[in-house]
């Protein structure tokens, strides 16, 4: 389990349009670049931002990761507050 690699994935997605495109078109290939186990890959693939934050991932990254996908801020807050989104 690595908070570091999870943060690297989210940082790379937030700072590179090319990474965003690859993640959108071929997420398995994109995530294959990183030292993540299957559970960690699932957290990213399914935008499980609450669990990512619970693992210590910086919430500036989880918030940016959520918004860059075009998802709503209100849904993000519901998830972070452990309410139904």
């Amino acid at each position: 389990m690595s908070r570091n690699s999870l943060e690297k994935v989210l940082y790379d997605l937030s700072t590179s349009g090319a990474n965003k495109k690859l993640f959108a078109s071929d997420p398995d290939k994109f995530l294959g670049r990183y030292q993540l186990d299957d559970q960690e890959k699932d957290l990213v693939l399914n935008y499980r931002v609450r669990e990512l934050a619970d693992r210590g991932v910086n919430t500036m990254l989880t918030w940016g990761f959520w918004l860059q996908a075009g998802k709503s801020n209100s849904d993000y807050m519901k998830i972070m507050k452990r309410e139904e989104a």
Partner: protein
Amino acid sequence: MAEIVGGFVVPHNPVMYFNPKGASQEQSDTVYGAYAKMADRIKELKADTAIIIGCDHYILFGTECLPRYVISTGEIEGPVDQLPGIKRAPIASNAALGEHIAQHGFATGFDWTVGRALHVDHSVGIPHHLMVKPNGGMTTVAVMLACGVDPYLPIRRAWDLGENIAEAVAGFPGSDRVVVIGSGGISHHVGDERMGEVNPDFDRKILDIVIQGDKAGMLALTDEEILRDGGNGAMEIRTYACAMAATRAAGGTVVAYEPIPGWVTGMGFAELKVAA
């Protein structure tokens, strides 16, 4: 010799650009009016250089390398995270002063990371746009402290760094008139479940510390207290500590304060006196 002639602490809130309607018109006018007042004050002080002390938000530096404190010693460009009305562009740099501060630090126990062609984010870009750029011809030295991503720079180290900057400026062989800008929000939570909470009591406490030049009060703040009462974004008050120390903690005046939940931040503005 160069001289620090003024100082300020201000927020650098990108939400006011992305969601301008998150504040009332009165609040928005107060905030933008405060920036304008400070820009005017910089003009009155006849300053020609601004040292803007900001912090990275996991925008500039990634997990591969997380510097403790960085200074521009060459060109500056930003903000890389463009905002409506603030496009990424070159920022006129005082490279000689930045290099001098870095060299002074190397000789006196401060191992700066240097940016010889430094990119900055909104923490430098917003105060530059609203306070420095309106005063044509000014140059900038950009400083970034580890405030947004752990391991955080200890507040005491931020203070010591500010004192070291003051020493360096005083020894710079030029006639530069320098203002120091500590750039950071007070209470705000970024991306966590408390985002939108602001804490006016905490904000007032921090502003009181600033305007009283209360070094002991600033250094007594623990990360636990800041995170509990101010939120993860309030770790940015390290920039205030650095600016206070650079002006020799002579106190100051609150210019404006607005707690704005719609902008997720306690927005405080103060001018710092400079010790004679």
